[in-house]
């Protein structure tokens, strides 16, 4: 059974399968939610609140979510490239979408180390 992330406020509700959620980017009080069908949805929810919902709701699947700095949450399932020196991270399913994102060098260095450790490289 797949897990779903449910985000809701007074006006709308978004239900996203964990394996479809690629990343979430913060824009102040708003968050832009990107899914693997190329859709971008904007909600009036702060990134910290989405992080909390992911922590509460998504824990029984193969998707691993990481908060990178103040403005990104990414699904490591789609991680295809990290280059801390260039401050670059790429999320892709290698078929239909490819997102080039930017984050701090130090955060990406930590993420690279984490992925290496997890896979005992």
């Amino acid at each position: 059974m797949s897990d779903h992330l449910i985000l809701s406020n007074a006006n709308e509700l978004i239900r996203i399968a964990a394996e479809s959620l690629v990343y979430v980017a913060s824009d102040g009080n708003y968050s832009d939610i990107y899914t693997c069908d190329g859709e971008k949805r904007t909600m009036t929810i702060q990134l910290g609140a989405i992080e909390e919902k992911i922590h509460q709701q998504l824990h029984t699947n193969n998707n691993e979510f990481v908060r990178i700095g103040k403005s990104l949450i990414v699904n490591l399932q789609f991680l295809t490239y990290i280059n801390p020196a260039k401050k670059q991270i790429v999320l892709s399913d290698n078929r239909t979408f490819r997102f080039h994102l930017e984050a701090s060098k130090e955060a990406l260095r930590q993420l690279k180390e984490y992925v290496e450790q997890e896979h005992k490289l």
Partner: protein
Amino acid sequence: MKHIEDIKDDEIRIISRQEVKRKPFYLRWWFWTIVVAAVLLLAVLLALSVRTKTAKSVDVPETVTESVPVAPTIVQAEPATVLVRDTVINDVPLRLLTPVNAVPELCLGIPDTTDPSLVLGLQAADIRADNRKIVGAFVMKGELLSRGMAKKGFCAIIDGKIQLGMAESTPLFEEVTEKDGYFFRQYPLVNQRVMVENKPKNKALRHAICELNGQIVVVSSLDKESFHDFAQAIADLGVDNAIALIGKNAYGFLHDSENGFQSWGEDIEMWEREPYVNFIVWRAKTNNHPSPTNPLTH
């Protein structure tokens, strides 16, 4: 809480990990230990209860309590009004308007000034000169009508309570959308008792919504003032937080119990042509309104 702690740009935090397969709880030794202990405890309690009941075999006359119907309490709402007080701070003449027994809300369009339940109304968020839409985030009964952060000051109204502040993002914004509240942005004038400088240098009639001694008070300048002089005057007045309301020729009105209806600013017909003209108004409390204990509700 751990998971909503601040995070720096050079940090990462693992939110959810891949699940590690664990034995089901009913295959674990501690589960069966707890079950056996609970059964034993239940048996002991049952035996004790049977023994106590046997000892209490004395007849006790039954007490019958008649329930007396209680008449419902009718709470009469106190009349709503606006207290008007003039003062001079640093040679800046100010008028303080304190709504009493009234609940704040935002409204889009010109409010019905003939409605005596509206005791005070002033224009809230600015209108953009190019597209005539609202400047900055604006939430009306939980519905987001405009977004953006052109000005750092904010006014959030949740459950009839006003909260003023200065921040690029605030959790109150989310709370407002969840609780059908109201939100708008304006220039911050005083933050935590400290005056805030703003860019506009021209002189004009100024209005501000302020938190003063635990009450919400609208302060207006009686002469044309610069943002700096007005903000300094209200800071010296002792307000904790304050944000600007639209000044210059903005329309405003009050229903004062002593002097009746008064209005100021430019002709209302001019503003009627603006589709996004918006007001903060105070409406007389009714018995249906929440009766908050916090004095900031005024």
